[in-house]
């Protein structure tokens, strides 16, 4: 294969252009990958370790090496255009008649001295060109991604002090509650609770799920103690009410001329209960002393009026035995309104304990109700109301086909050998799979 200067002069600029395009392509791919990695690293660091995020910009120093690497790789893979391959392109651009390649290979075939000048003139302005848009289109998305990674603000990390403040804001109300209701806890219990709260507060791991759970546990223990106290007070009030009822039926003096033996026995039992409840109410010492005094007065009352007076005082005193600064028992939630969860059985998701007494409102007819309420004239059904709508020849049987798709259609195969083919909804499937996964 021979070459000569005329052909070189025409082919070399094209060859250079094509090789630059090849190198740019190789570098472009790597640049896109680098920018992608850089953006991803920047985003990750901003989320995980914001203080290290600026260091990711050091990856930019790889850019020149990347260009060099692309060039070396093209060389290694022998990807660059050779002169002969460029001449093939020139041939196709010229007349597509094989003359350029033939004359390049066998110059003696060319008898036209003007051939190269014609060739040069013919391909002038028709040589393939590097398209900058091609590269811009590919770089823009990755640059946008990188810009986005730069613009995303780093995650604000809480300092240790901020952690302490958050935890304090959670634990301090509990400490206050314990202090306020210290009589509800024994010294050991109180010390344990305080120690738990202190450990939670001093834990350096920040706000975590475990901490929340620990705080919840302490909260539950306090609530449980308060509930116990309230229950005892309620029992005592209940006994006093019953006692008051008994007294209303008693005509004579209690001690000197006792009533019927049955009433007497009931009174004795109620007094015994009052003693028991009194012992387990866990009131403050001062309050407890007052209550003991009133209880003794009631026991020592000689006539009905004195006893009723003592009972009234005792009820009043008991009602004033507040727990957590509120009225004890259920009587504090009288009236209407949902409240904010402080009243048992009322309110939304924070409505309080489930075992609280239910409060019924007025009867309402639902707007979507199929049947309307009808008041019976005699308050019971008369034969006229019981009219036969029709008589069926056989006993009515449920039609399995009319069941909704989610229900079991047939109960016939009870041996367990057959499989129910009933279709179930995705929601039900989820519940069933969760159940069997346990």
């Amino acid at each position, binding site marked *: 294969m021979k070459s000569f200067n005329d052909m070189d002069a025409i082919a070399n600029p094209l060859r250079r252009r094509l090789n630059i395009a090849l190198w740019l392509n190789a570098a472009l791919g790597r640049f896109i990958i680098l920018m992608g990695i850089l953006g991803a690293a920047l985003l990750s660091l901003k989320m995980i370790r914001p203080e290290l995020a600026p260091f990711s910009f050091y990856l930019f120093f790889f850019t020149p090496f990347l260009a060099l690497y692309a060039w070396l790789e093209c060389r290694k893979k022998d990807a660059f255009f050779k002169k002969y391959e460029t001449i093939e392109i020139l041939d196709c651009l010229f007349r597509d008649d*094989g003359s350029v390649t033939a004359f390049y290979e066998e110059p*003696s*075939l060319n008898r036209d001295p003007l051939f190269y000048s014609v060739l040069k003139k013919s391909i002038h*302005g028709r040589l*393939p*060109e590097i398209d900058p848009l*091609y590269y811009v289109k590919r770089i823009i998305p990755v640059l946008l991604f990188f810009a986005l990674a730069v613009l995303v603000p780093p995650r604000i990390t809480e300092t240790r002090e901020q952690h302490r403040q958050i935890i304090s804001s959670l634990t301090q109300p509990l400490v206050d509650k314990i202090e306020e209701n210290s009589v509800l806890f024994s010294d050991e219990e109180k010390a344990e609770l305080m120690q738990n709260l202190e450990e939670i507060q001093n834990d350096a791991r920040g706000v975590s799920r475990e901490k929340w759970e620990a705080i919840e546990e302490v909260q539950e223990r306090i609530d449980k103690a308060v509930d116990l106290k309230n229950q005892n007070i309620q029992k005592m009030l209940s006994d006093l009410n019953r006692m008051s009822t008994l007294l209303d039926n008693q005509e004579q003096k209690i001690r000197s001329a006792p009533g019927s033996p049955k009433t007497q026995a009931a009174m004795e039992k109620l007094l015994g209960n009052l003693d028991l409840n009194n012992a387990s109410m866990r009131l403050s010492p001062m309050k407890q002393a007052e209550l003991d005094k009133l209880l003794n007065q009631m026991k020592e009352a000689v006539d009905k009026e004195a006893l009723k007076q003592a009972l009234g005082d005792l009820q009043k005193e008991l009602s004033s035995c507040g727990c957590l600064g509120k009225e004890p028992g259920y009587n504090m939630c009288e009236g209407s309104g949902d409240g904010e969860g402080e009243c048992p059985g009322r309110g939304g998701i924070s409505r309080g304990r489930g075992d609280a007494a239910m409060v019924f409102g007025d009867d309402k007819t639902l707007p979507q109700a199929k049947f309307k309420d009808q008041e019976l004239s005699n308050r019971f059904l008369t034969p006229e109301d019981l009219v036969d709508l029709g008589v069926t020849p056989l006993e009515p049987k449920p039609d399995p086909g009319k069941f909704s798709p989610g229900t079991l259609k047939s109960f016939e195969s009870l041996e367990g050998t057959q499989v129910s083919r009933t279709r179930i909804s995705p929601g039900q499937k989820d519940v069933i799979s969760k159940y069997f996964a346990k």
Partner: protein
Amino acid sequence: MEESNQIQEKIDRIHPAVNSLIRELNQVLLDKERLIQDLVTGILSRGHVLLEGLPGLGKTELVKGVAHLCSVDFKRIQFTPDLLPSDITGSFILQQTNEKREFIFQKGPVFTNILLGDEINRASPKTQSALLEAMQERCVTVMGETFSLPDPFFVMATQNPIEMEGTYPLPEAQVDRFLFKLHLTRPAEGVLSDIVLNRVFGLPPKQEPVMNLEDLRSAIRIAQEIYISEAVASFISRLVDASHPDSPLAPPLVKKYVRYGASPRAAIALGSAARAKALVLGRVQAGFDSVKQLFPLVMNHRIILDYSARIDGVSVNQVMDDILKNVDEYSKSLPSGVRES
């Protein structure tokens, strides 16, 4: 340099005769310049040509015209189902001379320069195969004795695409021996009126030969000396390779519909045809344009499609177009990011 100049001179000397042949043939078959140029290209590349077209389009007249204008021997065989191989090749017959009887070889119609096999697909496969040796080896063997055929020797067979009943389609091995398969189409309306006006009894105009046998031989020889560059040869090989469904160069249609691609004989044929085409065009080198132009003629009977092509209505022409569209003329494609002006 001297050798190159000699080729150029030879081309310059024979090219006018070739041009005259094409010009005169255009008088035989009106409005078929392209087909005639392809036929002459086939003759100059020493290839056999299969002409396909409906009856009455002038296939036989065209071949007869070639023989007449080149002043070469011409014979015609009308292929029929009862035609025997010996009817083509000839046979030994017992002949009485003055003193003795001896077997003398009676040459068949195959001993000619241009053999017109009319409706070749009507003969039995046994008879068709009698042409095989003649077409490829350019000799005939009868009863163990081999006889060379005249030089040049061409088979120009015609085939009728309709009336397929009672025909024997040519086997692939035999079809592959034809350089080109040319399709004759009906003339345009304007041309038809010219034919009506000027062709009384359908006879072609009287023409004088434009070259003799020696000129034809010389033209064929010169065509084989035409220079073909490595780039063009590489393009031919890529095109032929792309016709195989298992080739990495194969375009989607080839991968989906082609059962068998073209053989290396097709690549040789395409190279020879490109050289001959250069002679027709008066060039010293074969070009990419000639290869692209001749590719369908060389390939259309060599690419075997599978049944799915028939179901989907995909033709060989569509497959060949797909190959030409997808195979780059450059051995190395332009890099992405470079746009052609």
